[in-house]
């Protein structure tokens, strides 16, 4: 950690050397440790101290981007010069709106000292306890436990001076028996929020309950999708549908459907980076304040998220969802997607199912088959169960689903009032917050041998 004053001073000093019309510097620094375990022992254990410094310079309507991971003054100035040289070498982008002006950021508590101080030995001892829960039952445990601390700072020549320190702790675990497996996970800004023993019990219990799974023929079933399964669906819908690029290209399932009812009115989905209970973050990678954006409101398609460039094309304003400049060609993306909770207690969800399937988690979902119709395919894993007359009967062998999520969400029966945070690859600045969902109809198209 460099600290707010020292870091902004350093970035300002480099900014002062720029000869471009406009200049932006983004600093993303991270100390990251991850302890990975499988077959009930730690087999990979890593520590990393790294940063990225991204320069975006503007000459008229010409934009250049260059990045380095060296904080040495000479390297920073060289990278700044490189970005100016790149801007000079390219044609004007008439759609470029200029760099954003300064905005007001919500004060958010995103840093936890205890999490930042977590050592490899502390992680190892936690993992040891998690493994012990599986060992007691004669099972093995696999997973990964990571902790990180970092800081993100953005300065630009139009007055943006944003800084936010962050921490994150994340664990996933898979309990394994000869014939079954069970999964649990958690993510938070604070280690103290995570009940490791309770999580291990969930994974162990699922493994135990799904032993000797029976085969079930594919077909149309009622399903209970637990939060990890919902999160994987939502991450794909986000990638293919809630961003500005897919919307403006016409490949999003929301394109040409704004204002139309596309799912059950029980479904409300929005992006909100400002909720301190989740992995909150106050600004995007252009330094624009994050706004809450309604994507689907009671089943009606509402909007998508924008960065400053896509906003010009969309004749709207940035919603604060820009990615780092090196990834800007992907368009804006929601990093804090929330599926609004419902009113049904999670404990009562299963009792409403006559004959259906409980899905703990999906594997390898792909949503590129038919993005306009939000068609996804993927496999179940780590705890798939048959439910009959409101009770879990037994574990079943994994199934492949292939279905339009707009179609499936039209059949929503109930949504749990409890939600869970699920980690994503961008967990330093966001995560997915999702409840358990009961769908009346979900199409399974294939099966496998385990």
């Amino acid at each position, binding site marked *: 950690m460099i600290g707010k004053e020292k870091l902004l001073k350093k970035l300002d000093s480099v900014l002062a050397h720029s000869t471009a019309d406009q200049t932006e510097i983004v600093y993303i620094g991270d100390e990251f440790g991850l302890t990975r375990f499988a077959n009930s022992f730690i087999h990979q254990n890593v520590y990393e101290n790294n940063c990225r410094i991204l320069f975006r310079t503007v000459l008229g309507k010409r934009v250049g981007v260059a990045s380095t991971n060296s904080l040495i003054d000479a390297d920073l100035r060289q990278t700044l010069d490189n970005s100016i040289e790149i801007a000079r070498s390219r*044609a004007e982008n008439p759609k470029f709106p200029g760099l954003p002006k300064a905005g007001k950021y919500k004060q958010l508590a995103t840093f936890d000292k205890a999490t930042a101080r977590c050592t*490899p030995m502390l992680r190892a001892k936690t993992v040891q306890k998690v493994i012990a829960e599986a060992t007691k039952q004669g099972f093995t445990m696999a997973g990964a436990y990571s902790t990180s601390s970092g800081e993100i700072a953005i300065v630009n020549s139009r007055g943006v001076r944003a800084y936010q320190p962050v921490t994150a702790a994340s664990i996933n675990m898979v309990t394994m028996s000869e014939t079954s497996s069970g999964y649990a996970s958690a993510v938070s800004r604070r280690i103290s929020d995570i009940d490791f023993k309770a999580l291990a019990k969930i994974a162990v219990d699922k493994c135990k309950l799904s032993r000797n799974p029976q085969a079930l023929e594919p077909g149309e079933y009622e399903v209970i999708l637990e939060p990890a399964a919902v999160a994987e669906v939502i991450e794909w819908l986000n990638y293919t549908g809630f961003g500005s690029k897919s919307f403006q290209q016409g490949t999003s399932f929301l394109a040409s459907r704004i204002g139309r009812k596309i799912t059950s009115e029980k479904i409300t989905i929005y992006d909100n980076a400002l909720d301190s209970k989740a992995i909150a973050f106050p600004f995007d990678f252009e330094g624009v304040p994050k706004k809450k954006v309604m994507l689907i409101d009671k089943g009606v398609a509402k909007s998508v998220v924008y960065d400053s460039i896509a906003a010009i094309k969309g004749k709207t304003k940035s919603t604060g969802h820009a990615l780092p400049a090196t990834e800007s*060609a992907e368009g804006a993306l929601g990093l804090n997607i929330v599926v609004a909770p419902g009113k049904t207690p999670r404990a009562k969800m299963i009792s409403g199912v006559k004959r259906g399937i409980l899905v703990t988690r999906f594997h390898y979902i792909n949503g590129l*088959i038919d993005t306009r119709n939000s068609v996804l395919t993927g496999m179940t894993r780590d705890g798939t169960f048959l439910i009959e007359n409101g009770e879990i009967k037994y574990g079943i062998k994994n199934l492949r689903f292939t279905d339009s999520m707009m179609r499936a969400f039209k059949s929503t029966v109930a949504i749990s009032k409890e939600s869970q945070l699920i980690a994503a690859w961008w967990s330093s600045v966001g995560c997915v917050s999702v409840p358990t969902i009961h769908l009346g109809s979900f199409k399974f198209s294939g099966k496998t041998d385990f």
Partner: protein
Amino acid sequence: MKDKLKECIEWLRGKGVTYADCRYIRKENEAIRVSDSVVDSLSRNIDVGVGMRVLADGCWGFAATAILTPAELMKTANQALQVAKASAVTKHDPVVLAEQEPFVDFYQSPCVRDPFAVPTEEKIGLLIKVTDVLKKAKKIKSAEAAMNFFKTSKLFLSTEGADIEQEIIESGAGYHAVAFDGKEAQTRSYPNSHGGDCATRGWEFVEEMQLLNHAERVREEAVALLQAAPCPDEVTTIIICGPQMALQVHESCGHPIELDRVLGTEISLAGGSFLSLDKLGKLKYGSDIVNINADATIPGGLGSFGYDDEGVKAQRTPIVERGLFVGYLTGRDTAPVIKQRSNGTMRADGWNRIPIIRMTNVNLEPGEWTLGNLIADTERGIFMDLNKSWSIDDKRLNFQFGVECAWEIKNGKLGQMYKNAVYTGITPEFWNSCDAICNRDHWQVWGVANCGKGEPMQTMHVAHGAAPTRFRNVKVGVSK
């Protein structure tokens, strides 16, 4: 840098570690993307750092830093040692490394023209011309063309005396057009979907693609797909194009032969493998004409190198011989389990990641057919062209692929176009239904630059040699 790292190696040796290695990597990247004839993004990125791996108390530790001062490097060496000691809290059996002679060598990938020396204007000009052609149809909603270049310098030192330097240049390019009629959207790409093709070669690789020559066809096929019939639901014969075969090999052969997956150490994220140890040398993976190898020595292959990130020399390994499963991809800490030496597949996607088992160039060897003869020999079926979607279970058995475009095959000729085509199967059943593979004239090594594995995630550049291939009794069309 070498002297500083040698001091770290000596310090670690003095601490009594079983083994240690240091990797210095400097990676330079240029990425250009043109959207609808406007430069959408153009960036140059430099990433430099050192990763140190330590085997102590029978366990691995790893630490990496971007700060390259002598003090920080020594601190990182100590951090790696402390991480290894923490790993020992849950130790079962100590890590055993396969024997390996320490090489002192220099490797350079083949490159006729350094892509970083090609003027940016020349690259942008070509991409703009491509999107100009792609946009010449009202229903083309967007057209994107991109190039990506990497120049990677590596230094590897170990306590065993290895001292290896490598210089690898990679070049890639591709484009796609999205057609939209207000109701649906269809995409067509060249030379492959998801970013095109790439290789450990120079600018000449991009020139050989003849990007501009295919833009008109891509545009017209994207528009035609809007009106195409949906792929029927049936069990039929399919012929899969070379690039899609590359991904088929990748998902259903390349991943399940990774020995770390087989041993369960990737289970929580990527999953395991149906190719358990008892199947080695016994399982009939495919039909008699199926021969698959892993070959890191193919000049220009995206999965080619001189040495892996454990200092093991690049090599060619048989995986499937006449349909029989005969080999895994291994590293020094997994090969002893099957009483072998490493076959050199341990790679990291940067200085800040540990090496893990990765595909090299995993190739389906060519057969004897010409594509024309193969289609003519097929009375009824579907030709599947370029990947659109991919999914496979966590043991790599049940797979489903979608393709950008398909054509009916009727009485030995290509017929009407199909959209939203998918096919699905179970890996060994599918490969045992393979009855024809096109010859070397149709065989090409296709780069796959987005292979994800590991925690933290590592994105690896790998490749697959493949030619159009025919399979019988395949289930197609389950996308509705």
